[in-house]
């Protein structure tokens, strides 16, 4: 082991660089000494083997990669440990309790734009669950699966394809390397009718901080065959407590999978002006609320779309934020409008033929052009969204992080409002004002999940430039605070801003979470700082 930090130095300096690999800020947690940490590493090696504990800067380096701003080097972990079984997770939690070493669980660690394998507070070890990647059950009749946290969407998709099981998966935008368990636990979303991942989750196995194993829903009934079929069991519903939280380590999760429909038809609606987004929301909401459109309605701004497949320098060389005129010109050249709304119809040829005219009639009245494969074949943006809306796999959105150059900076800001068109006017204006103040671009989308409106803003910056990283951090925090003042709070945020966002949800909410945390995890060993819960 080549871990060689002097704790006093670290505490006084705040952050240090080590061994010339660029690893910074390996600060130990306040609850543990250097000798204690060395003992933790040794004890953990005895559980998982020396190859699966990382505590020296070189081997830890892959865990320090992150797209979110971290100008003060506060989020890099001090180590990582990689169990392969539930029993090993239990043994590691015992060690963590003994030495008071906090562990930050990740499934596949690809929560891009939210922090990947970095933690909310200094001194944590990453509990890397990627090796636990068993697909435990798939029931083709019920359309259910039971999987471990390290299973990727790619693995699940491959399994279904190779076994000719006609079930779809529902992916976030970076499905191949992300995990259904991790995404669901962070309350992520996808683009088919099963896109609200927590809604379509059914049953969890959780290792509690004291090592006990809790199975939610029907999972604790001996002989049940309904663990993945009935969500609620009896008494309080526990599953939500283990999402965006730090009350346990989820080691199994049930999912509902959508039967592959006989017919699928993706659509794009093109609107020409930035100001059109309010009337798009008003047009789409009734269709979505009534489930005539069964999947999320995604309204992509032209700048967001362009940023996927272009570099900023291709379309803008001016000072400050890219102008609407420059965006419009580039969008037009690529077959895009200023807003591009994507949705799909699923069912049979007959059911789609019955619904399509109703949808077209409503959308036509909003001034949008309704486009399908017939008109958009060959358009990479249409193809991208048509892929996502059938649960197809793609990493094309990673292109976003090259918009500002090669530096790779991305932080998602995602405030929520009711799905009312009037909300978009103030939100877009405020976002453009704050982003403009720092010289960043309004690369954003709106999404109607069901009755709510998510404003999904990609803060894109060049992380290789420390000054720009600092600006990005300041810009993000200003957006959180100023949107919050108007009642627009985030549904999810990255590791640097978890405490800030949690404050907006109020002291009673924070105190309740704190009470739960202390009762369940008295040594505070699981992910302190997750969602602002210490």
């Amino acid at each position, binding site marked *: 082991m080549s871990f060689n930090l002097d704790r006093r130095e670290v505490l006084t300096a705040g952050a240090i660089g080590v061994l010339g690999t660029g690893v910074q800020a390996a600060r130990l947690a306040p609850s543990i000494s250097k000798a204690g940490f060395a003992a933790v590493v040794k004890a953990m090696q005895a559980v998982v083997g020396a*190859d*699966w504990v990382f505590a020296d800067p070189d081997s830890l*380096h*892959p*865990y*320090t*990669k992150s797209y979110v701003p971290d100008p003060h080097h506060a989020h890099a972990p001090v180590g*990582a440990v*990689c169990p*392969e079984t539930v029993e090993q997770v239990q043994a590691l939690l015992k060690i963590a309790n003994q030495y008071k070493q906090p562990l930050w669980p990740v499934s*596949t*660690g*690809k929560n*891009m734009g939210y922090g*990947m*394998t970095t933690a909310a507070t200094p001194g944590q070890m990453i509990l*890397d669950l*990627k*090796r*636990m*990647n*068993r*697909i*435990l*059950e*798939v029931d083709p009749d019920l359309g259910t699966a039971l999987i471990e946290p*390290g299973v990727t969407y*790619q*693995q699940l998709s*491959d*399994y279904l*394809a*190779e*076994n000719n099981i006609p079930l779809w998966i529902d992916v976030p935008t970076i499905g*191949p*390397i992300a995990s259904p368990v991790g995404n669901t636990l962070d309350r992520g979303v996808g683009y088919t009718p099963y896109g609200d991942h927590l809604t379509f989750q059914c049953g969890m196995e959780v290792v509690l901080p004291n090592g006990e194993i809790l199975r939610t829903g029907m999972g604790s009934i001996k002989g049940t065959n309904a663990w993945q079929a009935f969500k609620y069991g009896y008494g309080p519903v526990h599953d939500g407590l283990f999402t965006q939280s730090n009350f346990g380590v989820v080691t199994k999760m049930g999912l509902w999978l959508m039967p592959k429909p006989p017919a699928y038809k993706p659509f794009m609606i093109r609107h020409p002006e930035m100001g059109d987004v309010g009337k798009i929301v008003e047009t789409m909401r009734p269709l979505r609320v009534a489930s005539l459109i069964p999947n999320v309605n995604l309204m992509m701004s032209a700048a967001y779309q362009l940023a996927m*497949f272009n570099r900023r320098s291709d379309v803008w060389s001016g000072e400050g934020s890219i102008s609407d005129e420059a965006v419009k010109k580039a969008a037009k050249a690529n077959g895009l409008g200023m807003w591009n709304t994507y949705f799909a119809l699923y069912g049979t040829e007959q059911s789609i033929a019955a619904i399509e005219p109703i949808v077209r009639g409503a959308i036509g009245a909003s001034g949008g052009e309704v486009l399908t494969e017939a008109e958009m*074949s*060959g*358009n*990479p943006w249409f*193809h*991208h969204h048509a*892929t996502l809306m059938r649960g*197809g*796999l*793609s*990493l*094309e959105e*990673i*292109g976003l*992080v*090259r918009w500002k150059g*090669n*530096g*790779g900076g991305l932080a998602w800001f995602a405030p929520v409002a009711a799905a009312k068109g009037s909300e978009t006017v103030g939100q877009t204006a405020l976002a453009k004002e704050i982003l403009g103040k720092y010289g960043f671009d309004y690369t954003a989308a709106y999404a109607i999940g069901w009755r709510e409106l998510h404003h999904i803003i990609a803060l894109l910056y060049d992380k*290789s430039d420390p000054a720009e990283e600092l600006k990005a951090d300041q810009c993000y925090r200003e957006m959180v605070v100023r949107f919050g003042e108007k009642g627009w709070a985030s549904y999810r945020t990255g590791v640097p801003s978890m405490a800030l966002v949690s404050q907006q949800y109020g002291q009673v909410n924070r105190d309740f979470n704190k009470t739960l945390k202390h009762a369940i995890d008295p040594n505070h060993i699981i992910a302190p700082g997750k969602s602002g819960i210490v």
Partner: protein
Amino acid sequence: MRLGSSLVAIGMLAGATAASASQALGHTQAARPPEKIYAVTCGYCHGTNVGPIILGRHLPPASILFMTRNGRNAMPAFRPTEISNAELEKLAAWISASAANPKEQGK
């Protein structure tokens, strides 16, 4: 052009999938051949409008290994839990020795 390259990636994926054994229920993922790893990880970006082309450039295996583990610039880093050391060694050699695929679209 861009659509074409995306379809190529899907085709490569399907080909790799057909050639590899299914993951057995209840078992962890077995070691994968380089072609499979390229198709389900690297090829989604390097060849589909996101990252630069890496096939046919005879990049030194050591550089590929370093880039994979460190995730330089916009590239994410991949940990040994995602691509094992043994898998990565073979993958780096395979990428280094591979001919260019003219159907890929770099960026």
